[in-house]
């Protein structure tokens, strides 16, 4: 069991998401930073879809009741096992009675706590993710509270080679992903998030100036952003002329522009249909970048074509597989 000793209001159990039910109006849900979520499970040798805890409010404290291994990925939060500190993106052993504390991150917004075997909550529609908006899945269909006790499919302790200090991985925001980020628009010292965007079906319905502003402006992530959608502040985006649209299916990443002209990026808990014109769609491979954007931070979009979007997804998959296939993992299975 894992006992929650301290948590903010928006920490929840998430897995890779609830897919295949959008036709019934069921949102995808799942881990906002799918890259951090997946790497956490890779570090532990878990199945790819093992449920983790998504932590958005810090400090977060849990007590373990059994020996296991755990991995903390995502935001660069402080990690303390009792008094012992670990760097971010780290996998290590925990013993019964030990308390894990995650303190506010120096960068990033969401941390993922994965445990060996995964968090054991009932599957609903094929997923253990919490649909916070509707209130089902995950742990009792809600965010975690102090005193909650989560079951986990704890696996036996790691091999002797693992040691108590464990190991870490280079965060994906560095290395080749950092160079990629520079290409996306961080080259001029922009410290915010850069995400690649495909133009949307109604892109040509916006004025030329407005369309240019989507690419040129530094958008601010407003405080009323959440797992449903990211509301951005910046220049007003105007339509050439008002258009009436029937509600239609939308996916995470779609950038809608409501009549007041400030874009909303739909995220994983977003509704499955909408009626606002769509100026673009953040590519799937860059949704994790948005997931780690802190409230108040700047976001920049760069236009890409579908070939680059597909290539980015392939590169991301290769990155995860390169960790999974590493020789190091052999000693950790």
């Amino acid at each position, binding site marked *: 069991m894992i006992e929650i000793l301290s948590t903010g209001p928006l920490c929840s159990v998430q897995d890779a998401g609830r897919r295949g039910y959008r036709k019934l109006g069921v949102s995808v849900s799942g881990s906002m930073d799918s890259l951090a979520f997946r790497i956490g499970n890779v570090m532990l040798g878990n199945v790819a879809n093992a449920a983790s805890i998504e932590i958005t409010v810090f400090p977060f404290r849990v007590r373990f009741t059994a020996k296991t291994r755990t991995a903390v990925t995502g935001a660069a939060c402080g990690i303390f096992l009792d008094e012992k500190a670990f760097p971010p993106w*780290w996998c290590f052993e925990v013993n019964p009675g030990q308390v894990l504390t995650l303190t506010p991150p120096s960068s990033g917004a969401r941390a993922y706590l994965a445990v060996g075997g995964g968090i054991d909550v009932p599957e609903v529609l094929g997923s253990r993710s919490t649909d916070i908006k509707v209130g089902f899945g995950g742990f009792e269909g809600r965010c975690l509270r102090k005193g909650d006790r989560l079951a986990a499919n704890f696996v036996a302790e790691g091999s002797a080679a693992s040691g108590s200090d464990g190991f870490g991985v*280079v965060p994906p925001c560095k290395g080749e992903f950092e160079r990629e980020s520079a290409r996306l628009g961080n080259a001029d010292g922009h410290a915010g998030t850069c995400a690649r965007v495909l133009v949307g079906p109604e892109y040509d319905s916006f004025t030329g100036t407005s369309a240019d502003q989507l690419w040129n402006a530094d958008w601010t992530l407003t405080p009323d952003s959440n797992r449903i959608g990211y509301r951005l502040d910046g220049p007003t985006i105007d339509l050439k002329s008002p258009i009436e649209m029937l509600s239609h299916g939308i996916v995470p990443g779609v950038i809608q522009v409501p009549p007041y002209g400030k874009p909303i990026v739909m995220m994983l808990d977003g509704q499955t249909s909408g009626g606002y014109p769509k100026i673009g769609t953040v590519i799937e491979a860059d949704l994790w970048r948005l997931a780690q954007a802190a409230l108040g931070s700047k976001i920049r979009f760069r236009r890409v074509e579908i070939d680059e979007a597909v290539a980015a997804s392939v590169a991301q998959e290769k990155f995860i597989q390169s960790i999974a296939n590493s020789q190091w993992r052999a000693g950790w299975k």
Partner: protein
Amino acid sequence: MEIAFIAELIQHLQQSTIEEMELRGQGCALRLKAEQTRPSGGALPASKSQTLDSDKQSNKLVIRATALGFFENQHPSNEQPFVAQGSEARVGDIVGLVRQGRFFSVVRAETEGHIGSMLKQNGETVAFGDVLFELNARERSYT
């Protein structure tokens, strides 16, 4: 398996932090295990003792690399280095990382003191047992 070969292995084992090793060949298996009196951990206790003896006059202690790889004095997610010259290191404090490919292992202080000389630059290649830092021990540790 030649006796001389085994003797050489034991000699190497005594100079390392390896607790236990097993070697299997055709029709034979050899297991060597360090005596329990030797403390476990990443740094080289034997070398540390030697350092303690030889440097006792100057109160010098060292922190050594626990793996082969590239030394990193800060985590890529953080802008601040783990330690700086003159900063205090307590037992168990993280003082650096050793990167191998996409992976890190951690280097912790095994004794307390103040960081003196920093002998490896960020990104420099280090071998197992290389001295990374010299520590100036606290006076009270030796009085």
